[in-house]
């Protein structure tokens, strides 16, 4: 049950900084789960804030925040994407790029509320499906997504590239 003081709303400019702080926590959490997952660079949060700022004016993107008494405790970023439309008879689909809820507020339905609002926005744009990536080591996230009915379709794998150079 979502705390009645939590409101999900579209992000505005003043939310960009707290969203970037949540993003930093997300990156740290991922790296703690799996050292393969990248760490943030110095100033990474500022770069991310600029990205979010850009998305606020993008009609094909949606940034939502969970606001608890004026404090941003979670956010989700979704975008409309095309999947090689010439080759697939699939209408554009949605991509959930990032989602994070402050760990102190988890388990109360805030994440679900964010996803439902984003899903509604996708549906309003005539998008039938949306996709996202989950860190393989993030079991809590899997439980969350499975509870919503998410279905894994692909595995993203990562490998180091040999440093040695070969023939030119």
């Amino acid at each position, binding site marked *: 049950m979502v705390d009645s003081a939590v409101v999900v709303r579209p992000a505005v400019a003043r939310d960009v900084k707290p969203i970037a702080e949540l*993003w930093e926590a997300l*990156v740290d959490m991922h790296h703690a789960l*799996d050292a*393969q997952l*990248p*760490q*943030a*660079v110095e*100033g*990474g949060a*500022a*770069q*991310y804030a600029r*990205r979010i700022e850009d998305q606020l004016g993008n009609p094909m993107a949606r940034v939502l925040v969970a606001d608890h008494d004026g404090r941003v405790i979670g956010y989700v970023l979704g975008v409309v994407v095309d*999947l*090689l439309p*010439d*080759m*697939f*008879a*699939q209408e554009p689909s*949605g991509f959930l790029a990032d989602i994070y809820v402050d760990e102190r507020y988890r388990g109360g339905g805030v994440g679900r509320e964010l*996803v*439902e609002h984003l*899903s*509604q926005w*996708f*549906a309003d744009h005539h*998008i*039938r*499906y*949306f*996709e*996202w*990536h*989950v*860190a*393989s080591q993030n079991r809590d996230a*899997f439980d969350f*997504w499975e509870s*919503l*009915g*998410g*279905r*894994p*379709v*692909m*595995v*993203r*794998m*990562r*490998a*180091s*590239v*040999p*440093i*040695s*150079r*070969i023939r*030119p």
Partner: protein
Amino acid sequence: MFSIRPASSDDLSQLAQIWYEHAAIVFAQRPAILAQRAPEHWAAAHAARLDAGETCALFVLVWGTRPAGYVSVHVEAGRPGHRDTQIGVIDEAALDVHGYYPGAMRALVQHARQWLSNRGVTQTIVRVPRSSTVEQAFWRSAGAKDFEQWLILPSSFGPQ
């Protein structure tokens, strides 16, 4: 027995057919339907890549005298704020499903990784169908590790 070289426009129609048969298997698990004339669109999309310079490449594996497989790779910017400023992406790699080409896929992948390495890329990503344990096993044997799962959900799941 086989060689690997950059693809040319003359290869595209045969590679498109290889792609099409592979894609039909890959996308059987997703709500995407291959469009009519999809191979022709694939060939057109990859024709643009042939002249795209240093950021992407298409290599063809020639077995005997005919194309029997390919790998398509590109370099993209890392996610904003992350340490990897660029990432290599193996977009597609496929072999003709009607033949047996031992060692061919490994050679294609090695070629693609070396191409990336020559451009200073240190990490590469590939996406593999969840349903294809054989393909996953291949990539693990090539040194890849799972790092993300790709999930899908109907937009209608919530209270619309």
